[in-house]
């Protein structure tokens, strides 16, 4: 991939992006521009297509780009497979992380790091880093040896996603409702993890959320409102406040 971008360049951009699932159009002409280190928030009522945007950005083959283009780090990635997008520095924290029996969380992360960097991952340094990240997320260390997400509670699954975010250090991460279904303490923990990612890696974020709790400790740069597959409003941090108090009503209809 190309060299580091300057702060004022665009890291991720969608141009007139339209996406269909099983032939049904979901997203219509979405334009996004995310600069390195920026935090963008994507809000919208249920069924607006927020998760679809996340999956399409990450290249899920079931989400077909029917029009438009996705650029990352100055390159057109519209036709790139998911693993190559990940290696280029993209990450998606899943709303419903998948359970994969037979591989432990720890060795999965190590394997993924190896795939992404192409370098062998030194075990001791890795273990130390992993333990630190798990401590930050108040995750019991035993989770590293448990099968990936198998039998994890909803909260532990989300923490495991943020753990991967911290360990894989992507340039750009999409958090798809990472805070949904979590209790107050768990949201605070996850939010602490996201903050640490920002501080340690300085990566950009697209946070898909219904609530504002996860955003409390973060500085939001841009807020987008997605309704029926179209971006209907874009603003700053104040837009989050507005939706928080008034809902989406003025954007519907």
């Amino acid at each position, binding site marked *: 991939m190309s060299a580091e971008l300057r702060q004022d360049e665009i890291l991720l951009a969608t141009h*007139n992006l339209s996406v269909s699932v099983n032939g049904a159009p979901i997203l219509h002409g979405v334009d996004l521009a995310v600069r390195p280190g920026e935090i963008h928030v994507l809000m919208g009522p249920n069924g607006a297509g927020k998760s679809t945007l996340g999956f399409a950005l990450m290249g899920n083959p079931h989400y077909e780009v029917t029009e438009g*283009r996705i650029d990352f780090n100055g390159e057109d990635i519209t036709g790139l497979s998911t*693993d190559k997008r990940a290696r280029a520095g993209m990450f998606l924290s899943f709303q419903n992380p998948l359970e994969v029996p037979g591989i432990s969380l720890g060795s999965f992360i190590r394997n993924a790091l190896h795939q992404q960097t192409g370098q062998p991952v030194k075990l001791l340094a890795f273990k130390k880093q992993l333990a630190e990240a798990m401590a930050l997320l108040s995750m019991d260390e035993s989770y590293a040896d448990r099968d990936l997400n198998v039998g994890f509670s909803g909260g532990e699954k989300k923490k495991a996603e943020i753990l991967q975010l911290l360990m894989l250090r992507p340039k750009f991460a999409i958090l798809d409702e990472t805070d949904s279904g979590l209790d107050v303490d768990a949201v605070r923990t996850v939010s602490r993890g996201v903050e640490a990612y920002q501080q340690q890696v300085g990566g950009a974020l697209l946070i898909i959320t219904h609530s504002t709790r996860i955003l409390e400790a973060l500085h939001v740069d841009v807020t987008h409102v997605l309704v029926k597959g179209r971006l209907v409003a874009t603003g700053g941090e104040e837009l989050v406040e507005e939706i928080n108090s008034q809902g989406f009503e003025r954007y519907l209809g």
Partner: protein
Amino acid sequence: MSDVSQNRTKPSVENCNAVPDIDRSVYDIRDEEHESDFYRLEEGLTEETVRRVSEEKNDPDWMREFRLKCLDIYNRTETPPWGPDISGLDMDHISSYVRSKSEMKGSWEEVPEDIKNTFERLGIPQAERESLAGVGAQYDSELVYHNVRREVAEAGVVYTDLESALRGEYAEMIRSHFMHLVPPTDHKFAALHGAVWSGGSFVYVPKGVKLDIPLQSYFRLNAAGAGQFEHTLIIVEEGADLHFIEGCSAPKYNVANLHAGCVELYVGRGARLRYSTIENWSKNMYNLNTKRATVAEDGIMEWVSGSFGSHTSYLYPMTILKGNRSRMEFTGITFAGKGQNLDTGAKVVHIGEQTSSLISTKSIVKSGGIGTYRSSVVIQPSARRARSSVSCDSLMLDAQSRSDTIPGMDIRTSDADVGHEAKIGRISDEAVFYLMSRGLSEEDAKAMIVSGFADPVSKELPLEYAVEMNNLIKLEMSGNG
């Protein structure tokens, strides 16, 4: 803005599951047979051939008579009317006996160079140096190498080839056990085995002796158009403990090869025997193998079985739980790829009271392969309060492949506790996408899911075999065809 065409998307969903075939190159390196170095019996099966095998092997009289009786049974018995098609197997074109003209060696250095190279490539006997109590290596019809650690031999453990055992101190013991558990009347290929068997191992573990490291036999069929008919006879006396490992492989030829081995296991009172197999025959092999164990009071029989190779397999290791409170556990995995029809499973007969059996199998099919799980659980009237639990999981990697489950149960008591569970699934696209979103290639993501599916079995295998199994899975899933 942009003028991206409609078709410019990601890899298509339909092609996700097309997985090319295995690179078997390590196994496929075959050694040229130099005519002068090998003795090979002409193809086909007649009284004359059987007499010749017997002569070659310098059998005692009773064994020669036994072979001829088996041939007679073979000729009168029909091939099984069920199971995968074996009409491609023509006994008139199978040579039943091929051996190197060198004698069996007790030291690795003395084994002929080309044979040694084959085993070295397969990682034998490096394994021995590290973690085994003894190793036997069979090449075509005869053992070429046999060695046991001194302390193991000093404990009274016998691990030798069956031929020498037939002429030595244990001759009577062999006569009273050989093909008593698997009689030649059992089925046509048991009779064939009785007629032309050659090679294999005899293991005797005396009362109370517990081996904490395993014994291993490795079988290699190198000759084209040949059969391998090794016989393994293991007797574990009261309170003794043994782990025996068996590995098999062969290079691929365009003509059919046949493996009709026979394994007979006698587990004494309170004894424990664990029998692990990784079978990776080449895909021109007909694997018609018979394995059977009988277990005395409080004895434990454990099977771990991985079937990856062969063109066609019939394999159902059977356990007879004769003694009260005897137990068996069977853990198996079968991977059927292109052109393979693997019919595998397990059988158990409960005779003693409070006997218990636990059968758990995994089956993976891809590229048109057929995997059939076939089992039989029999609980006889005498087996009061018997318990049996059977579970089988199948993973289908594409729509061209086929997976069947045929569980049989025959329960003759009213107080048995019996359970059966079967699941058939596919690799979920979402799981593949999830793993790929972390940077794994599609191939690696799928291999990871398949290895994960097989994990409960790999956990049961000795480490180097678990590694080999994972390598086989990776090879099967990779594009190195």
